[in-house]
C-alpha cells in the first residue's frame, strides 16, 4: 500500500466530490427540500455509484497486477463478443442501442470495453519483439483499437466510439510517426476551414471562395513544410516555396486589380505542380518519403473536393444544418444550436464566484439539456463560477500530468502503454466534453469523467484508473524480482 500513488487517489476523490456536488445541483428540483441521499433522486443514486466505485477500486487494488496481463486477451475477446451482442440485447434509449438492462440497472458495455482494449493493446505492444514501425505490428494495433470502435458505432453510440481515437495519442508516444497525427489534424483543419469559409469571398472578389483559397494555401504550405522536415534538400524547398507563393500572390493581385477571376485554379495548379515535382523527386532519388508527401497533398485535395460534394450533394438538409450550426455559420437558437447556446448562458451567468451551491437557475430549470450527464460542466460553471471551473480543469490537468509521470516510471512497456491509454482517454473526454459545453468543439455526447451522472461511466473510469494504479504499485516488485 505504501507504493500506491496517493496523489492520484486524492485527485480522484476530489473530482468525485466535486462531481457529486454538481450532480446534486443539476438534478435538484425546487421543493425537494434537499435530501440528496434519497435513492429515488439522481444525487442519491450517484452516491451508490461512488461508494460502489470505491469498493470496486479496493477490489482492483487487491488483485495481483500480473493477472491483468494474463487475462488481457481473454478480457478483450470477451468484451468484443459482448459489444457484438449488445445491440441485440439492448433496449432503445433515445436511438442508442448500447444499454443492457440487468435487473433495475442499465449498464453500457462500451464504457468497460475501454479498459479491456487498453489492457489488450498494452499487452500486445508490450511484447519484446513489438516494433511499431513494422507495418504489420502497427496494423494489428490499429485493428485492436478500430474493432471495438466499429462495434460501438453499430450500437449507434458514435460519441463513445470516437473516444478510441485517443489511443492514437498513446501510439504517438510509442513511436508512431508524428506525420500520422499531423495528417489527421490536417484533415480536420482542411475540412473545417473549407466548409466554414466556403460562402465567404476573399478580399471582396466575388469569384473566389475564401474557404477554398485557405484550404489550398494550407495544403501547399503543409506540403512544403513536410518537404522541409522530411528531406535534407534546402534549395529546392525554398524554390518551390518561392515559386508557389509568387504565383499565388501574382494571381491574387491580378484578380483584385485587373480582371477578377477564380485564383483557386492557379493554386490548384501550384499544388498539382508540387505533387508532380515530388513524384519526380521520389523516382529520381528513390526516396519513398517524397511519394508519401505527394500522397498527403493528393489526399488533402481529394478530401477537400469530397467534403464539398458531401456537404452540398450527399447530406440531407438537416444534417447540413447541423454541421453549419456547429461551425458557427448559422444561428439556430431553437434547434441544433439550442444546447450550446443554453450551455453558454448557464456558464456565462456564473461570473467569478458562481451563484452558489444549488442556486443555479438555468440548470435547475432544465434550460440546459443533458445537464447531469454530458452537460454537467454547466452546473459547475453556473454554481461555482470561474473559480470552480478553474479548480476542476486544473485538477484534471494535474491528474493527466501525474499519470504521464506515473506511466513514464513504469519498468515495462506494457505498464507505460496502459498508463498512456488511460491518460489519453481522460484527456480526450475532458477535451471534447468541456470544449463542447464551451462551444469550442462539436457536440459529441461523451461524459465528463467522475462528474457526469451514471454508474457505467464512473465504473469504467474507475476500473481504467485503478488497474493502472495497481500496476504502478507493483512496479518496484517487478524491478526487485528482476534484480533477484
Amino acid at each position, binding site marked *: 500500500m505504501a507504493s500506491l500513488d496517493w496523489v492520484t487517489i486524492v485527485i480522484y476523490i476530489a473530482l468525485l466530490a466535486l462531481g457529486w456536488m454538481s450532480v446534486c445541483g443539476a438534478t435538484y*428540483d*425546487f*421543493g425537494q427540500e434537499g435530501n440528496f441521499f434519497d435513492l429515488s433522486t439522481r444525487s442519491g443514486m450517484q452516491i451508490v455509484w461512488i461508494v460502489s466505485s470505491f469498493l470496486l477500486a479496493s477490489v482492483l487494488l487487491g488483485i495481483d497486477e500480473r493477472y491483468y496481463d494474463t487475462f488481457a486477451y481473454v478480457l478483450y475477446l470477451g468484451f468484443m463478443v459482448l459489444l457484438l451482442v449488445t445491440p441485440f440485447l439492448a433496449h432503445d434509449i433515445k436511438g442508442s442501442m448500447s444499454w443492457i438492462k440487468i435487473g433495475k440497472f442499465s449498464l453500457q458495455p462500451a464504457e468497460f470495453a475501454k479498459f479491456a482494449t487498453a489492457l489488450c493493446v498494452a499487452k500486445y505492444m508490450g511484447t519484446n519483439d513489438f*516494433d*511499431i514501425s513494422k507495418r504489420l505490428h502497427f496494423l494489428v494495433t490499429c485493428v485492436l483499437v478500430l474493432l471495438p470502435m466499429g462495434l460501438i458505432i453499430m450500437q449507434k453510440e458514435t460519441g463513445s466510439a470516437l473516444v478510441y481515437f485517443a489511443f492514437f*495519442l498513446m501510439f*504517438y*508516444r*510509442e*513511436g508512431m510517426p508524428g506525420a500520422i497525427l499531423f495528417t489527421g489534424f490536417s484533415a480536420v483543419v482542411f475540412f473545417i476551414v473549407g466548409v466554414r469559409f466556403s460562402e465567404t469571398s476573399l478580399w471582396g472578389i466575388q469569384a473566389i471562395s475564401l474557404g477554398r483559397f485557405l484550404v489550398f494555401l494550407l495544403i501547399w504550405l503543409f506540403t512544403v513544410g513536410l518537404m522541409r522536415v522530411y528531406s535534407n534538400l534546402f534549395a529546392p524547398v525554398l524554390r518551390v516555396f518561392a515559386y508557389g507563393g509568387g504565383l499565388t500572390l501574382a494571381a491574387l493581385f491580378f484578380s483584385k486589380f485587373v480582371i477578377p477571376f477564380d485564383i483557386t485554379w492557379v493554386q490548384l495548379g501550384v499544388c498539382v505542380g508540387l505533387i508532380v515535382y515530388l513524384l519526380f523527386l521520389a523516382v529520381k532519388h528513390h526516396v519513398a518519403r517524397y511519394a508519401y508527401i505527394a500522397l498527403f497533398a493528393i489526399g488533402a485535395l481529394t478530401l477537400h473536393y469530397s467534403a464539398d460534394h458531401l456537404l452540398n450533394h450527399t447530406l440531407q438538409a438537416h444534417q447540413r444544418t447541423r454541421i453549419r450550426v456547429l461551425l458557427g455559420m448559422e444561428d439556430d437558437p431553437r434547434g441544433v444550436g439550442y444546447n450550446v447556446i*443554453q450551455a*453558454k*448562458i*448557464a*456558464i*456565462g*451567468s*456564473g*461570473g*467569478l464566484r458562481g451563484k452558489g451551491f444549488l442556486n443555479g*437557475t*438555468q440548470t*435547475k*430549470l*432544465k*434550460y440546459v439539456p443533458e445537464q447531469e450527464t454530458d452537460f454537467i460542466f454547466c452546473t459547475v*460553471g*453556473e454554481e461555482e*463560477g*470561474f473559480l470552480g*471551473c*478553474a479548480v476542476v*480543469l*486544473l485538477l*484534471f*490537468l494535474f491528474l*493527466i*500530468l501525474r499519470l*504521464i509521470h506515473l*506511466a*513514464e516510471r513504469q519498468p515495462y*512497456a506494457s505498464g*507505460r502503454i496502459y498508463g*498512456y491509454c488511460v*491518460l*489519453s482517454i481522460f*484527456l480526450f473526454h*475532458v*477535451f471534447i466534453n*468541456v*470544449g463542447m459545453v*464551451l462551444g*469550442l468543439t462539436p457536440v459529441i455526447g461523451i461524459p465528463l469523467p467522475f462528474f457526469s451522472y451514471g454508474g457505467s461511466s464512473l465504473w469504467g473510469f474507475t476500473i481504467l484508473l485503478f488497474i493502472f494504479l495497481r500496476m504502478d504499485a507493483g512496479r518496484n516488485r517487478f524491478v526487485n524480482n528482476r534484480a533477484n
Partner: protein
Amino acid sequence: MENDRHFSNRKYVLGIMATLIVVVYLVRLFTLQLMSDDFKRNADSNAFLKRIQFPARGAMRDRTGKLLVYNQPAYDIMVVMSEMQDVDTLDLCQSLGITREIFDRRMEEIRDRNRNPGYSSYTQQLFMNQLSAEEFSTFQEKLFRFPGFYIQKRTIRQYVYPNAAHILGDVGEVSPADIEADDYYQSGDYIGKLGVERSYERQLRGEKGVEILLRDARGRIKGNYQHGKFDRSPIPGKNLTLSIDIELQQLGERLMQGKLGSIVAIEPATGEVLCMVSSPTYDPRIMVGRQRGRNNRILTADPMKPLLNRAIMGQYPPGSTFKTSQALTFLEEGIITPQTTYPCSHGFHFGRLTVGCHGHASPIPLVPTIATSCNGYFCWGLYYMLGNRKKYPTVQDAMTTWKDYMVSMGFGYPLGIDLPGEKRGLIPNADFYDKHLGKSWNGLSVISIAIGQGEVNLTPLQIANLGATIANRGYYITPHVVKEVQGEPLDSIYKIRHYTKVSKPNYEVVVAGMRQAVIGGTCHAANNSWYEVCGKTGTAQNRGHDHSVFMGFAPKDDPKIAVAVYVENGGWGATYGVPFGALIMEKYINGELSPASEEKAEAFANRTINYGSTER
C-alpha cells in the same frame, strides 16, 4: 527499450498538449464568465417570470353611500396548445358564439411568434378576453370537453346606474403615451380614461404586486424565486366617496333628456358638487369590456358630442345671470349704491347704440333691477365704471379692475375641479380689447359684457359657482366631485375659502335682488312655501334660438344648494332654466319631489328641443 528512450521526449509533447487545452479553456471561460453581462441577463430572462398581480381597483359610492362603481368578475379564456387534443372545434365555437374562421385565425395569431413573442405551447395563452358571466356560462358547462382550455378570472369595471357617465368616466387599455409618461404601466394595463376614473387614477389603481416565478425550459412554473422573498403583494386601490347625490343626478339627467346643456349643483358651504349633468349623456355601462372600443367610436362620431362634458367644457355666454357679478362689482367700486337708479326705456340708448330691454317701471334701484333683469341699468353701470377717469386713469385701468373682480369670482380660469378637461371660459381684459378694437375703445364698445353677452363666456360650473359664492356672501370653495378618499385626507385645495373682492354687505343687496326675482320677478315659478329660493334667470342671446339659463340657491339664509341650469336654445330663462333649477332644489332640500313637481318633471323630461343635425 531503445525505442522507448528514443521517443520519451514525446511525453512533453503530450503534457504540453494537455496544458494548452486547459489554458485555452480557461481563457474561454474567462471571456464567457467575466467579460460580459449578456449571459447573466439572458439567464435571468430565461428563468425569471415576473408575474404581475393586479390590485382591485377602488370602488365609488355617492354622498349617501350608494354604490356607483365596482369591479365585476370577467373571464379570460386561456389555451395551452400542447394539451389541446380531440377538441370538438365546432362545439367549442358554438359555446363561445364564434365562427370557425375566427377560431382558426385566433389560433394562428397565438402561434405567430411575431405577434405573440412570449408564445410557448406549454403555457396558457390568451384565447378570448373579458367574457361576461352570461357569455361565459354556456362555455363553463362544457369546459371539461375541451382539454387544454382554461379560465382566468379578471375584473372589469361595473357601473350600477346608467347615469353620471361624465363624472365617473371609464377605464381602457393604456396608450403608448401613458406608458411613456409613467413607467408604472405596461402594455395591456388599464387606466382611467375620463372623469374621476382618470383624475383619481393614482388613488383608484392601487399598487401592482409582483411575484417572481421560476420558469423552466418548457415555460412551466416551478415555484417562487427564493420562496417569495422578493415578491410584493398588490395593494388594493382606495375607495372613493363622491359628493354626487345619484338621485339628484338622475333627476337632472331625466330633465335634460332630449335637450343639450348642463345642470350643475354645488353645496355652497363645502364646494361639493351635488350633481353635474351634461346632456346628451350615455350609459357608462357600454364603456366596459370588449364592446368599449366600438362604442367609444360611435360616441366620438356622434354630432351631438355626447362625450363632451358640457358642465366643464361647454363655454357659454352666461346672459343675465352675469348681472349679479356686475352689481357686486359696481357696488364694491362705488359706481352705484343700492339706491342708485338708471333710466331704462326699453333698453340702453346711447347715440346710435341700443341695448334692448323689456318693458318695466323706470327708473328703478338695484334690487328691483335684478328682479326684473333690466339690461339698461347694468349697461349704464359699466359705462360709468369704464368711463370714470377720476377713479381709473385710463379705460384700460378700469377694465383691468373689472377683470380682477371677475377673476376673483372664479371666472376666466379653470376653477380646478377634480375632473379632467375643465375649460377656462373667457373674461376679456384690456389687452384683449386693445388688440381687437385698437387703443381707442371705451365702455360703449364693450357694453354687452355687462349683461353677460359679447366676449364673456362661462362654463356651467362657473355659473353654478357664482351661485355658491353669492349664497356664501363672498367666497367659494373650489368645486369638487370627490368627497372622501379612503384612508387619505382630501386635497387641501378643496377646503380653502376663496374670497372675492366684494364685501359681504354688497352680497346681501344682490341676495335681496335674487330673492325679489323669485318672489315677484323673472323667477317667480321657482317660488315655494317650503324655503326661500333666490334666483336669477338668463336668456343668452345666440345666433339661433336663445339659451335658457338659471342660476340660484336656497334656502336664502342657510344655503344648502346652489344651482346653474343651461339649456341650449331653450329660449327664455323662465322656460327651462327656472323650473329645472326649482325641481333640483326641491329634490335635494326636501329629499323628494311633491306629486305636482313630479308631474312637472315628467312633462319636462318628455319635451325635446330640435337641434337639427349640425355638429354642436
